[in-house]
């Protein structure tokens, strides 16, 4: 029997987006999936490599692995699910390339939902939703089909993409996730005063012209930036994390 380890709980608390955690818990409850919150988490650790601390991340990677091994032993978890693109990318690419392996697979929530799509029973959700791909998840890792298929399965939901003129240059073969702008979630750590300005501008220039009811991101860090930009810009639009939309649309 599958048992999920929620990975990234502490990051959502650190970023002050507890609704991401609440949404995941409600989602798993509705899906009748057994889950455990990862308590021995080294919060936001995967971000270290991009901040100049690659050697340190290599040193603490075994600590993170040990923590997950403990969760496997104590709770029998079989899969780690994260709402963070950076965590997914680190354990499936950068750290993996350096020989660090978790005892269980780490998937992103969009992949988990896609893999479980036949089990999901949706009610009608009449909203126009603009999707933003987390940079590491979409542009870097190519996880782009999964979130779209999940949203398309929700009756009444109208999915819209971020537009860029270069998508119309046939020979370039660019897709929305190639050109989608980052709302600047990392600025929270590296240059906090700038984040709300970057996110507001992304909403002004790329989100609002598509006239959605909701903007959603596949990365909780991106979501947290969009939220800050929306509050700062007072845009007449809702900002929701990806799995929160799915949870709201689920029967039960």
């Amino acid at each position, binding site marked *: 029997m599958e048992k999920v380890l929620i990975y990234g709980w502490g990051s959502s608390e650190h970023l002050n987006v507890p609704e991401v955690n609440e949404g995941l818990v409600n989602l798993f409850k509705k899906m009748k999936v057994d889950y455990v919150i990862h308590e021995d988490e080294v919060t936001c650790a995967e*971000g270290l490599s991009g901040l*100049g*601390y690659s050697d340190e991340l290599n040193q603490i990677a075994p600590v993170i692995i040990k923590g997950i091994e403990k969760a496997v032993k104590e709770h029998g978890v079989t899969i780690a699910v994260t709402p963070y693109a950076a965590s997914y990318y680190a354990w499936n690419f950068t750290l993996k390339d350096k020989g660090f392996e978790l005892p269980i697979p780490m998937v992103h929530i969009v992949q988990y939902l896609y893999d479980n799509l036949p089990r999901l029973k949706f009610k009608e959700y009449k909203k126009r939703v603009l999707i933003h791909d987390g940079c590491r998840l979409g542009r870097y890792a190519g996880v782009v089909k999964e979130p779209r298929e999940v949203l398309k399965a929700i009756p009444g939901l109208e999915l819209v993409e971020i537009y860029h003129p270069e998508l119309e240059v046939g020979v370039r073969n660019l897709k929305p996730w190639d*050109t989608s702008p980052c709302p600047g979630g990392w600025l929270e750590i590296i240059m906090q005063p700038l984040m709300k300005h970057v996110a507001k501008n992304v909403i002004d220039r790329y989100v609002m012209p598509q006239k959605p009811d909701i903007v959603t991101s596949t990365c909780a860090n991106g979501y947290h930036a969009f939220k800050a930009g929306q509050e700062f810009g007072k845009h007449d639009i809702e900002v929701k994390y990806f799995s929160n939309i799915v949870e709201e649309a689920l029967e039960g």
Partner: protein
Amino acid sequence: MEERNVDKIYNEYVERIVTQGAENETVRIALGRAIAAFRKNRQAALNKYPHTVPLATEVRRIKEYSIEHMHELVDRACESIEENHGHCYKAKDKDEALEIFDRIIGTGKTIVQSKSLTAEEISLRHHLEEKGNEVFETDLGEFITQLLGNRPMHLLAPAINVPREEVAALLEKYTGEKIDHKDITAMVNTVRKILRDKFFKADFGINGANVISADTGSMFIIENEGNARLVTGAPPVEIALIGMEKVVPTLQDAFKTVEVTWRYANYKMPAYLNIISGPSKTGDIEKVITYGAHGPKELHVIFLDNGRSKMAKDKVYREALYCLRCGACLYECPVYEITAGYYGKKYLGGIGTIWDAFTTVGFKESVPMAYTCLRCGRCKKTCPLSIDTPKMVAKLRNDLKKMGYVPAPVRMFAEEILKIAEEQK
């Protein structure tokens, strides 16, 4: 002590980029207009000339080869230039380059200059002015920037942060004449009038180049205004300052490189492509070659290293030398989009951080820029040569960390994580 200094550098920069950049509505308006136009034009240019996309892949290979053989190619280019009756110099750093300029120019001269980032890199205009020369920037955007006492805010559009209303007010102040704040044509005509005679009165013309071919010593200058054509054609002496990374093996390689450059810089075809291989000459009287017929009698070409050799030696940083300076990455950067040139020092944006670290301000001063980049990768997708700026910035951050240069917010964040990890061991 070291860390406090870095924090001071970082805090001053954050204050500047937020208050003068992000909170400045004028910057947002001007950039919004410019970016929309750039994207539309580039879409049209690439759709009309789709062969540019595979050609860019070929140019990437040309640049890889050229940087690998940079010194050898510069030597070959110098031989070609001397053979064409020009003078060639190699400057190790900024001071050597400025010394060469001083030897050629001296003092009390009038100089016209066409837009050159390499000149900006060594603060050439300020140096020549300090030496008692009168220098006129002739690119329209650079001229506006010079009048403002500012610095360029984009590689191709130096005054991109200045809306038309501000340009009109500036020109009114300079000329004392009334200018319609909406009439861009009138503003262009005014600048034309101001600069027209300067080209012909100047003692020296100074230019940069987009690319130079080693086999023929031919420099290529892409432009639309016609100012580079006048700068390189009207004064009696021409001096070109060229970064070593601009050299490619052959004339054919140079043609390919410039075509990709202008197309990705949003032009179907620039108004002018200048190719200069030597001083002006004629053999019309008894086939006796005489120099200085209508154009410059002398041509001096200065190749500038100034950190480029160091960059070329590093497998990761060397990619920065492939940059064609089309400026597209800046237009796609979510931070640049609201801060313009406040994101950078001499060079701009993510890739500019690498350039600044190696060629202008040094590693320590580049810290805040290194921590402005989101590493989102949008620039790489839009770059004709797929230059991996996020990877270079990640390496720079790691190198800065090893030097002890990490700004306080990042340091505190990392220390918190490391503490948690230590507790869990």
